């Protein structure tokens, strides 16, 4: 076998996975105004899934795998899925956005009915989901809404959403932030801000720091990366990241520096006790569960996250409504794509059993999380769990001993596998 060049090594193509890139055939609906009343009458037992990300896409597929007699309708406003894992490599120019973008045709082949729309509201009493001017009926509902940003937590952010980029939902903002980084003059200052926990993907900001620092070191050696972290220390894989950052003297890391305001007019962010000028800003805002979960009052007293049963993922607040992925709280698991994928499968299996009047198995999730610390090396953390008296409990957390090329190769293998598991 010939040695792979870096580009080939990183370039796991979507074609090679059998995942159609931006497949868009057989869209149902597509026009909210055409959706009135019960626009898709329920003929058999039906599961409706809101959100086609790591949790929702997986749940939709696994309900069909578990019992093909159950109808599954997935409601997702985006035409294609863009992976947040590996999107930091788009910022450093090591991967294209196309290589992490996949259509939903694989799910359609599994018999999932994909509606490219935004779910407007949930009505648990009548078991309906509002879409457009109409509604869909369900027997069980899976809500996998991801996160929404709390713009109001940072002064000046709400009115400048288009100028102050988060790039924390992979897609157009990822591409635009990469462009801003590439067009920054050598000697410029890139400021990256980390929100307070809990937020999507705990090690994600620190991987991004590595990727931006690697890019600057390689392409703009006079530039600097200032990190304003709201947390008192690196949130995840701290020792491994500290070791990796020794290769990047261009990083100026400031812990316990919570951003409270931003002013793109004068290119300045303000922390509780400091002002920092920037040329390019990447402000990752504080987060809570996706809007529909907040609006449907699936969130707890904190108005941020959704508490669920640890075995079925049924909301503790609404019967028949299951919540999975980043929107959940209370399990000792990180808000990661891998955990959302596991929750999707476990929740789907529980729902199939419940709809068939059979006992629900108690299955714990798992977490495998890779972070790229340079153009060729990665680190990883793995968590395994068990269920004790109906609650998820950690068995063990294990870190890779050091960063390496072989961990990076396994990261590529992980991505290939899990994207297929969700969408193929």
């Amino acid at each position, binding site marked *: 076998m*010939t040695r792979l060049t870096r580009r080939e090594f990183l370039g796991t193509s979507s074609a090679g996975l059998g995942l159609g890139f931006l497949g868009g055939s057989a869209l149902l609906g597509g026009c909210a105004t055409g959706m009135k009343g019960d626009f898709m009458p329920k003929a058999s037992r039906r599961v409706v899934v809101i959100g086609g990300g790591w949790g929702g896409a997986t749940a939709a597929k696994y309900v069909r795998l578990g019992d093909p007699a159950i109808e599954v309708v997935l409601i997702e406003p985006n035409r294609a899925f863009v992976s947040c894992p590996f999107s930091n490599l788009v910022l450093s120019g090591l991967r294209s956005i196309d290589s992490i973008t996949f259509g939903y045709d694989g799910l359609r082949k599994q018999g999932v009915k994909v509606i490219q729309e935004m779910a407007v509201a949930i009505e648990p009493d009548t078991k309906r989901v509002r879409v457009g001017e109409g509604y869909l009926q369900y027997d069980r509902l899976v809500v996998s809404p991801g996160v929404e940003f709390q713009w109001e937590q940072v002064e000046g952010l709400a009115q400048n959403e288009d100028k102050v980029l988060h790039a924390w939902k992979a897609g157009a903002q990822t591409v635009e932030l990469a462009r801003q980084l590439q067009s920054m003059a050598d000697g410029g200052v890139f400021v990256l801000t980390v929100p307070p926990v809990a937020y999507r993907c705990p090690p994600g900001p620190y991987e991004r720091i590595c990727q931006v620092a690697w890019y600057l070191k390689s392409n703009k050696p006079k530039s600097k990366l200032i990190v304003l972290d709201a947390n008192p220390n690196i949130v995840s894989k701290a020792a491994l990241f500290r070791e990796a950052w020794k290769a990047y003297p261009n990083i100026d890391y400031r812990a316990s520096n919570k951003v409270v305001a931003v002013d793109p007019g004068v290119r300045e962010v303000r922390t509780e006790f400091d002002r920092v000028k920037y040329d390019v800003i990447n402000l990752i805002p504080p987060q809570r569960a996706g809007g529909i979960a907040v609006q449907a009052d699936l969130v707890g007293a904190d108005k941020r996250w959704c508490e669920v049963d640890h075995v079925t993922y049924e909301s503790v607040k609404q019967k028949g409504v299951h919540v999975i992925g980043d929107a959940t709280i209370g399990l000792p698991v990180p808000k990661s794509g891998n955990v959302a994928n596991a929750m999707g499968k*476990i929740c789907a299996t529980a729902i199939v059993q419940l709809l068939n009047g059979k006992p629900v198995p108690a299955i714990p999730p798992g977490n495998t999380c890779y972070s790229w610390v340079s153009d060729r090396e990665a680190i990883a953390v*793995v968590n395994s769990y068990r269920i004790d008296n109906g609650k998820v409990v950690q068995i*063990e957390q294990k870190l890779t001993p050091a960063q390496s090329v072989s961990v990076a190769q396994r990261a590529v293998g992980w991505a290939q596998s899990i994207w297929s598991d969700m969408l193929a």
Partner: protein
Amino acid sequence: MPRTTSLIVVAAGAILIALLAKSAWAGPLDHPGYAKTLTCTACHGAAGNSKSDAMPILAGMSPAYFKKQVAAYADGARPSPEMEPYAKMVLQLGVDDVARYFADQKPEPTPIKAPVEAVGRGRVAAVQCVICHGPDGKGDPSRLIPSLAGQPPGYLRDQMLLFKQDKRNPADQTLNAVKALMHTIPDDTFGDLAAYYSSLR
């Protein structure tokens, strides 16, 4: 009247058949191992048929070999930061059910296509491997020798390197033969051997 009766009989019969079919229908969830492998499939693929180059295919694997590997991962004898926590989870969930589930699944050979020239060179280089793994690469479950046929080339190459560096089951004396053999093979040839075995069906 008789016509109506026969219609009713036919309809009742159809309903009865439908009811029987429903109650007798055994879905994938009825396998005692199905739910216990849900976490595994993120990396190892649905039903253990990995589609990636780095992760091995578990579908069709001999239960004895599977259980030996899970035990070795869990106690650190086969060092892997990824697999050690998951192996402990599998032991707690019930390794017999998990091993049985994967053994019962039909293996689909890796979709990773190795270059034809490398496969040809690998076939020539494999003369010593066949002594244990057999002419078809299917191994010998009774001696805990795994099948290599159709496994992803990247995984096979990695394992040969780990044997050579004595990083796979370093203390396991029963593997001395394979470790010694790997020492006689240049690193570059591992890719050819991996290509060849990944191409076997």
